[in-house]
């Protein structure tokens, strides 16, 4: 595997991916905040003003050059809230088709239940709107294929809501990894552990499936699509934008037998073409480990969350005297190397508590992903978290569910011409 890993790193370097800087990728460096002219303002319509949509809406309110110019939701209380947060004076729709007809909208943000993502994305592209679609990109692998083909054959900007792609922490981590800081990646572990039933308050039982859509199979892939796809994307990114090759898994509804249809715990193992395995778990009755990924290389491990990252070196630090002794074996100099001394104690001999990776964080990753999206809309550049990023992570999450449902090994579906 070592030769493969080496060529992989060389490839990354030659492709220039290792040197993608956050600022240049975001396209924000040259312009600078506050320098967006009035004609550069991007008018955005938000489809889905539930908790996620409103969160993004409020962030967009703080980004110069973005105007929330329409809101849409089928559920009146959510629509009312969205309208209020947007300032109360923009068009509010119950039917997203009507929003797509609004001429002055440059782009839409789709923050609806999963089963609507593909339909709405395709309709928005047909209406000539640029699209920011929340993860997971689609409800099924077939839909993912459709969306990819449609986007690749259009001049529209399409970005998927993997905010880690815009996180200074993750960028720094990926830079270190692609520079070889942990050697060759050999294994990846990721988890999102919570202790709670993942339910939302429902004012009336008739609204259960609408508001708790995450718990039902007609509208959600559960933990895999709502949580795992983010972290599968981190693994894909670390491995140079590879996609998985196969997956096995076991899931269950074991903690919350409340009528939900999606697993309340998932344990899946993905295999990548280069042999690396990604072991993923998400549970809902213990929150130890939280949401984190451990990217493990031949020379170290990086543990990363959206807040911070730590590097653990696989090899102990060598004593400088011993290093110099080995380097000077054949030289006269060897005599002068003081390799002998009264027994020394290395720092913290029994455990490596790791080194924090220093990162400047001027904005949240969600601010950065939306600011970058707006900049792509203005400049017509391809987003860093583009449709293929969403395709690779999304399809992987979906076949993870297939593997748990069937108890079989599920292979990556072949979509001719898409990688």
């Amino acid at each position, binding site marked *: 595997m070592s030769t493969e890993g080496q060529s992989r790193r060389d490839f990354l370097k030659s492709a220039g991916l290792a040197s993608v800087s956050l600022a240049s990728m975001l396209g924000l460096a040259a312009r600078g905040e506050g320098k967006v002219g009035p004609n550069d303002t991007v008018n955005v319509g938000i489809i889905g003003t539930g908790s996620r949509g409103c969160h993004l809406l409020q962030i967009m309110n703080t980004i110069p050059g973005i105007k929330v110019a329409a809101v849409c939701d089928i559920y009146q209380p959510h629509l009312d809230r969205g309208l209020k947060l947007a300032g109360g004076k923009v068009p509010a729709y119950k039917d997203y088709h009507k929003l797509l007809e609004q001429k002055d909208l440059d782009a839409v943000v789709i923050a609806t239940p999963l089963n609507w993502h593909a339909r709405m994305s395709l309709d928005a592209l047909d209406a000539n709107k640029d699209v920011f679609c929340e993860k997971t990109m689609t409800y099924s692998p077939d839909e993912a294929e459709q969306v990819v083909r449609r986007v690749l054959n259009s001049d529209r900007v399409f970005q998927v809501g993997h905010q880690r792609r815009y996180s200074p922490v993750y960028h720094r981590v990926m830079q270190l990894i692609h520079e070889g800081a942990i050697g060759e990646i050999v294994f990846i572990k990721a988890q999102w552990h919570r202790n709670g039933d993942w339910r939302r308050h429902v004012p009336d039982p008739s609204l259960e499936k609408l508001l708790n859509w995450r718990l039902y199979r007609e509208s959600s892939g559960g933990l895999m699509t709502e949580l795992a796809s983010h972290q599968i994307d981190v693994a894909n990114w670390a491995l140079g934008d590879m996609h998985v090759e196969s997956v096995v898994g076991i899931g269950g509804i074991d903690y919350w037998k409340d009528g939900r249809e999606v697993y309340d715990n998932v344990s899946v193992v993905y295999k990548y073409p280069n042999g690396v395995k990604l072991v993923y778990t998400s549970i809902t009755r213990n929150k130890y480990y939280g949401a984190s990924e451990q990217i493990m290389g031949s020379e170290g491990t990086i543990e990363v969350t959206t807040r911070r990252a730590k590097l653990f070196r696989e090899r*102990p630090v*060598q*004593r400088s*005297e*011993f290093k110099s*002794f*080995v380097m000077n*074996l*054949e030289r006269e100099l*060897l*005599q*002068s*190397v*003081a*390799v*002998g*001394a*009264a*027994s*020394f*104690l*290395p720092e913290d*001999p*029994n455990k490596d508590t790791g080194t924090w990776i220093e990162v400047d964080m001027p904005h949240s990753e969600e601010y950065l992903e939306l600011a970058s999206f707006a900049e792509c809309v203005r400049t017509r550049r391809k987003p860093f978290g583009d449709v293929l990023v969403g395709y690779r992570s999304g399809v992987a999450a979906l076949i993870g569910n297939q593997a748990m449902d069937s108890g079989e090994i599920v292979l990556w579906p072949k979509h001719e011409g898409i990688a």
Partner: protein
Amino acid sequence: MTVAATGEAARLQRAADSFRAMGTLFEVVLLHEDEGLLHALLNEIHDEVARLEAKLSRFLPTSEVSRINRLAGRGPILVDFEMLEILDAALEYYHKTGGAFDITVAPLLRKWGLYERKGHAVDAQTLRQLLDQVGSDLIELDRRRRTVTFKKPGVEIDLGAVGKGYAVREVVDMLRRAELQHAFVSFGGSSIFALGSAPGHQGWPFSIRLAPPELLDPVPVTLQNRSLTISGNTVRTVEAEGRSVGHVLNPASGQPAADVVAVAVVHDSPFVGEMLSTAMMVLGPEKGEEILARERAGALFAVRSADGVELRDVNFTEV
């Protein structure tokens, strides 16, 4: 680990490795034509050192030493042949050094705060009480039944002053069985064995540091098929009431060994060498000379002098 060719003429491959063990670093350089053998030996060395640490550490509750410390005060404890050999040798050198080498000083080390690196002053009365539990003559070995018994409760053994030397001996034996001719093995920099020669050299030349650089320059040595063991108070010292306490204690008085800053002992066996160097810290050059001669060992002492530190050579250059 690094493996690299060491030059056309020799065609020897070189492997070097360094890993944590017994609270310090184990370091090794191996030379051989067969790169595969070097890799395999590095793996075996790693396993062997880890095995010995798991057995000899007094800090691991599951070690043999911990088991003995827990139970041997209550009655005879069955031990394996390897532990019997180590304890037997420790008792032999306790007697040969007139009690200067003693594996039962653990209660004293703890009292002085030398395990947790925080110095405590120890008053005379406490010392007297503790000294009651110190002395290897409180260990009873039954070689036939293979048992160890402490004659008093509260006795504890600490193989910290022999474990590294024993591990180096075992590793060197392993290398010799694999017919390796040239290797340099160092445990913590203080327990060294030089097998054969470094490429292009006769033996293995290097320097040893016996005192801080402002007091004493490193001393150049060349070692071939012998061990060199350094004991010293230069590294592991703690402060107690304004005075620096070294980790080598005089078992007779319970006080830190005073005049010797460090000592390097050359001997055929790194196992014996480590016991002798510990004893020499306590005895000093005058009292140690006769023992060194009997053991066919040499020693280089760094001792406190009026204007700092001076070297005292006791057959060091001859052996």
